[in-house]
C-alpha cells in the first residue's frame, strides 16, 4: 500500500486511484485497435471478424494464408518495392535539403526566420486533399502525374517539415563557435559543414530521415491522385477496393470507393479485378 501524505483526505486518495484507472482505460483505448487487428491477420476465413474457432483458440481457425498471398502475388510485391523506392528517394531529397536548410535556419543571422520556418513547415499542416488537388493540376503540366518522379517530389515535400524539426532541435544544442573555429583554421564552409557539423548532428539527421521515410511509406492520398497503376506503392494497394487481403481481409467487402478519370481510373479498375463480396 502506497503511503500518502497526512493531509490527504479520502477524496484525495480516491482521486489518485481514479486517475490511475482512467489513464489505463485511455491507454487501452489507444491499444485496442492494434490488439484486435493483429490476430485477425491470421484469420483462416476471408472475413474481418473473429470466428468461433478463433475465440476457442482452435489452431485450424488460424492460418498464414494472407501473408502467403502477398508473397505469391506479383502485384503486391511490386507495390512493396515501389513503397521502398519512392520512400527512400523522397527521404533522401528531404533529408539533404532539409538538413542544409536547418543549419541556415538556426543561425542567429537568418533573415525572415519566422515566416520562412512557417512556410517550410506548412506541408505538415495543409490538408492532404488540398496538396493532392494542387499537385495534380500543377504536375500535369510537367507530365509528372503517373511517374515515379512526381510521386517522389510530392513525398519529399511532405517529409521536409519532419527533417527541419528534428535537425533544428539537435542544432539548438550545437555550439556555433565550433563552426567559427573551423573557419578560422582555414577550412572552407563546406568542409566545416561536412567534417564538423554533420557528425555532431547525425542523430537528428537520421531520425528526421526516418520520419520522412515513414511519412512517405504511410501516405495514401497523394498516391491516389498522382500514381499510375504500376508505380502505386504498397499503401495504395491497401486502400479499400484494392483490398489488402492479408492485413485487412474485410476491405474486400467494400466496393471501390470511386473511379476517377485519368490515371486513377485505370488504377482502380485494376484493383477491381479482386473479387468483390
Amino acid at each position: 500500500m502506497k503511503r500518502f501524505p497526512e493531509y490527504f483526505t479520502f477524496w484525495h486518495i480516491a482521486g489518485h486511484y481514479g486517475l490511475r484507472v482512467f489513464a489505463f482505460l485511455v491507454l487501452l483505448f489507444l491499444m485496442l485497435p492494434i490488439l484486435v487487428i493483429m490476430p485477425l491477420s491470421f484469420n483462416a476465413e476471408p472475413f474481418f471478424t473473429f470466428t468461433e474457432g478463433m475465440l476457442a483458440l482452435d489452431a485450424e481457425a488460424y492460418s498464414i494464408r494472407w501473408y502467403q498471398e502477398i508473397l505469391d502475388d506479383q502485384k503486391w510485391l511490386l507495390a512493396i518495392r515501389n513503397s521502398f523506392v519512392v520512400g527512400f528517394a523522397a527521404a533522401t531529397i528531404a533529408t539533404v535539403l532539409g538538413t542544409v536548410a536547418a543549419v541556415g535556419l538556426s543561425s542567429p543571422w537568418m533573415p525572415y526566420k519566422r515566416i520562412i520556418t512557417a512556410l517550410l513547415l506548412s506541408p505538415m499542416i495543409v490538408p492532404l486533399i488540398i496538396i493532392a488537388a494542387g499537385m495534380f493540376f500543377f504536375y500535369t503540366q510537367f507530365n509528372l502525374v503517373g511517374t515515379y518522379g512526381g510521386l517522389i517530389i510530392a513525398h519529399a515535400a511532405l517529409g521536409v517539415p519532419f527533417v527541419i524539426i528534428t535537425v533544428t532541435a539537435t542544432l539548438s544544442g550545437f555550439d556555433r563557435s565550433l563552426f567559427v573555429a573551423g573557419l578560422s583554421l582555414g577550412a572552407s564552409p563546406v568542409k566545416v559543414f561536412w567534417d564538423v557539423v554533420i557528425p555532431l548532428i547525425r542523430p537528428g539527421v537520421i531520425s528526421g530521415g526516418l520520419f520522412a521515410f515513414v511519412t512517405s511509406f504511410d501516405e495514401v492520398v497523394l498516391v491516389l491522385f498522382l500514381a499510375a497503376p504500376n508505380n502505386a506503392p504498397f499503401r495504395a494497394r491497401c486502400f479499400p477496393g484494392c483490398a489488402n487481403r492479408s492485413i485487412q481481409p474485410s476491405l474486400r467487402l467494400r466496393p471501390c470507393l470511386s473511379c476517377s478519370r485519368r490515371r486513377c481510373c485505370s488504377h482502380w479498375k485494376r484493383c477491381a479485378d479482386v473479387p468483390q463480396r
Partner: protein
Amino acid sequence: MTAATPNLDRADARNAAREARKRKLQAFLFVVPLLVFIIFAFVAPITTMLYRSIHNPTVANLVPETLAALAEWSGDDMPDDAVLIQFAADMKRMANDRTSGKLADEINRALPGMSSVVKSTARALRRVDDAEIASNGATLLKDANDRWADPATWRALKAAGKPYTDSYYLTSVDLERDADRSIVQRDTQIYVKLYTKTLRMALIITLLTVLLGYPLAFYMAHASDKMANFLMVFVLLPFWTSLLVRTTAWIALLQTNGVVNSTLMALGIADEPLEMLYTQFSTVIAMTHILLPFMVLPLYSVMRGIDQSYMRAALSMGSKPLGAWYKIYLPMSLPGLSAGALLVFIISVGYYITPALVGGTDGQMISNIIAFHMQTSNNWELAAALGSLLLVIILLLYWLFDRFVGASNIKLG
C-alpha cells in the same frame, strides 16, 4: 563585433554592417535550395489550384468567335442571327472534333438541363453543309432545339464564356447569381452546412482528445521515470502504426457483428447489434483515436517541466484537489494544452482518409466532398474553390498556432 561602441569610427561601423550583411546572406544561402524546392513542389501547385478556382477558360477557348459576337449583345432579347449562325458553325466544328461534350458540361453548370440540348444539337448539325449553315444557321439551330430561341440560354453561354469568374466561390458558399446578375441564395444549401458540420466534428474531436489526453498526460508526467517510459510506449505504438491499419481496425471493432457489438451483447447491455459503423459516431471515435497522441505528447512534455511542489504546497494547505488543479496546475499546463488542441483541430478539419473509410454518408467532411468533385463529378473548379476556402480556414488556424505556440514547437514524440 556588431555592437557599436562610441570609440568606433565610421569606417568600423561600415565594416560591421557589411559583415552582418554577409552573414545574413550566408545563412540565407543555406536555405535557398530547400526554398526553391518547396516553392516548386508545394507552393506553386497550391497557387495553381487557387488560380483555377477563379479561372476557367474552357468555353472561351471552345467558341471564341461566338463569344466575341455576343460581347455586343445587351442580353435582353434574342441575339442577332449572325451570332446564331456563327454558333451553329462552331457547333458543327465541335461535333466533328468531339469537343461538344466539354461545352455541354460547362453550359450545364451555368444553366441546368443544357447538357442534352447541346449534345442533341451537335448531333443534328454534324452532317449539315457549311454553305447551308452560313445561309440558314439560325433557323437550323432553333429547329434542333427550341431552347436556342430563349434569351436565357444565350445569357448562360455568355456567362460560361467569361474566363474569370467568381461563380465557383459563390457556389461553395451556397450562393448564385440570378438572371439580373445579383447574388441570391441557392435552392439547395449544401456547402455551408458541410463546413459547419466539419468544424463541429473537429471541435468534438478536439474536446474528446482533451478529455482523454489530459488525465493520461497528467498521470504519466507524475509517474516514476520508468513507469512513464513504459506507458509512453503505449502512446507511441499506435502513433507509429499505419493510419490505414488503425482505421480498418476500427471497422473490425465497430461493424455490426464486430468486437464491440459482440461484447455488448455478451454482457447483456445491448439486445441487438448497434449500427455504429459508417456514421458520424464512428468517424469521431476513429479520429479521436488517431489524433490522441498529438494531444498527449505536447501536454506531457509541458507537464514534465512543471514543478510538482506547487501542487503539494496547495494541497497541504488545505486546498481541494480540483481547486488546486484549476488555480495552479491548469495555468501552468496551458501552453501544452493550447499546442495540442490547436494541432488536433487543424489536422482534423482537413482529414480525408478516416471519414472516407468509416464515415458512410453521414460522417463525410469537407475534404471528402473536394475529393468527390476531383474524382467523380469532375467539377475541378468547384473542388479548387472549396479547397481554397478550406485552406483559408487552415492558414488562419496555423497563424494562430504560430502566434501562440510557435510553428517550430511542433513535437514529434
